């Protein structure tokens, strides 16, 4: 069944931490259909969950069967441990399939969760990157190429199909209970930093990302948006507030150690990501604020409180 104004919201990648948080909030207002190759333990009764890989043909049946009003596509993974080919195929082919179904079944709204990381941390970055800036992240970090492809694919889709309200969100580092690189980094028992560098960083609380995704469902909203949380803060100052020991390492030594540790599977942080704690990658979120009236509800203090004390969670 195609578009239905009272239909469900399909959420791909619903079984990640962020997806589950979104589902819990979304299902109070909307009917929710989950799509993920992982199981959804503790799935609320009124959420229909389909455990399928989004690249499978069977996904089409879900679109054909369920009355749908919108799709939130967040089945985009960033796992440096995953086989590169599989990573690429899942992200790029998966996104393509989902967007194709949106077109085929006349779904008027699709929200794609990209990331501000697509701009990439660079020494010569301007302080506030706006949405029309070229996505340079792959220049130094090849593994992020498919995430840029996904973002660009969604961008092209946005321009080619004015009939579908496409929203691409590029939030800054999402932190919270999620298992992504920035959150894992802030949970380390001893936090390494690059000696002599202290870039400004922008973080956003996972709850605010959920809020941003839900707001993007509002009819009439379309476009590419940076999404920022509370004001930027120097990395070291943030770590001091978190209060765990900080270990400054000279850049070349840190890089060599990280390269070895990554190869030996002692860490999940790929060496090129070191630039995130060396150079600035800050975005201007004023467009999203202006068009959607979005203001983050969670401040720096709440973010710091998330990470204060209890170490663990691991690399």
């Amino acid at each position, binding site marked *: 069944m195609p578009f239905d104004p009272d239909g469900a919201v399909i959420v791909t990648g619903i079984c990640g931490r962020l997806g589950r948080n979104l589902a819990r909030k979304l299902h109070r207002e909307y009917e929710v259909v989950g799509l993920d190759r992982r199981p959804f333990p503790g799935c609320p009764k009124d959420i229909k969950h389909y455990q399928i890989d989004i690249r499978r043909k069977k996904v089409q049946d879900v679109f054909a069967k369920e009355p749908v009003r919108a799709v939130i596509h967040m089945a985009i993974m960033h796992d440096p441990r995953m086989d590169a080919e599989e990573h690429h195929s899942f992200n790029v082919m998966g996104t393509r399939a989902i967007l194709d179904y949106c077109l085929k079944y006349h779904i008027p709204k699709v929200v794609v969760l990209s990331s501000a990381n697509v701009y990439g941390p660079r*020494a010569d*970055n301007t302080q506030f990157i706006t949405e029309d800036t070229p996505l340079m992240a792959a220049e130094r970090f090849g593994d992020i190429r498919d995430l840029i492809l996904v973002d660009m694919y969604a961008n092209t889709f946005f321009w080619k199909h004015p009939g579908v309200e496409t929203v691409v969100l590029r939030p800054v580092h999402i932190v919270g209970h999620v298992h992504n690189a920035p959150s894992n980094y802030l949970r380390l028992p001893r936090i390494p930093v690059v000696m*002599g560098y202290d870039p400004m960083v922008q973080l956003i609380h996972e709850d605010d990302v959920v809020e941003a995704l839900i707001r993007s469902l509002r009819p009439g909203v379309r476009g590419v948006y940076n999404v920022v949380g509370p004001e*930027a*803060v120097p990395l070291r100052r943030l770590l001091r507030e978190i209060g765990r020991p900080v270990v400054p390492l000279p850049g070349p030594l840190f890089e060599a150690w990280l390269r070895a540790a990554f190869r030996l599977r002692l860490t999940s942080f790929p060496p090129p990501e070191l630039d995130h704690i060396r*150079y600035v990658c800050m975005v201007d979120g004023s467009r999203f604020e202006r068009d959607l009236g979005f203001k983050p509800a969670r401040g720096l203090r709440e973010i710091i409180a998330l990470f204060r004390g209890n170490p663990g969670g691991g690399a």
Partner: protein
Amino acid sequence: MLGDALVHALGLEKEMARVERLPRDNLNEFGFDPFGYSPDYVRAVAPYVLLFYKYYFRTQVFGVEKVPKGRVILVANHSGQIPVDGMILATAMMVEPEEPRMVRSMVEKWVPTLPFVSYFMMRTGQVVGTPDNCVRLLERDECISVFPEGVRGISKTFSERYKLAEFGHGFLRLALQTKAPIVPVAIIGGEEQAPSFHNARTLARVIGAPSFPITPIPFPLPVRYRLYFGEPIAFRGEPDEEDERVDRKVKTVRSTLQALIHRGLRERRHVFW
């Protein structure tokens, strides 16, 4: 605290009182602006900087009252192999005018790659010189400084001293876009602090530096710095007008600055005092 001891020993109370009055708007709850500038950090390093400014370089400042309130672009000559001139200019704007101002210098894009330097630059209000950064600061009515000679300026050899190198056009287009007045500032003294006889361009390329001046002086000599502020120049025009028209305006700034430099050199009796 060593800093406080310095302030008392050298009688820097008046200057420090000005530093205390630096504007503190646009700071987050930890005291940083979005570019990473921290007035508290500036206050902490100020005694050491003032030691150099007042006692080592014995800086003299002429015409600082000509700098208008609100947004303004200071355009200065660059010199001295080690860019002390930027620090001198920023310190002068902090301690000389009635209302202290934080100068936001536009620095080269490779500066953030340097450990420690990047950190110091950011905390003291310097920003990477992208047009967007410049416009954002001017629109907040800040005072920015540019050295339109860029690296060409600091790597001049002794025989080229006080001859302005070619100017870039960027600053003028930004002035037109933001309707910010331009104040030329002649900085005298920097050229003699570390005379260089050769710029080893090949060597510079090998190590990836923008220039590699060969100088026998490992640390800036205690020359006397003199700063001459010119009258503000307000240009009219569109930021996207043709190069020739912008070029004429740039030449006006350049010749005004060169005249100001000549005046400074004429009035100077000696390099060191």
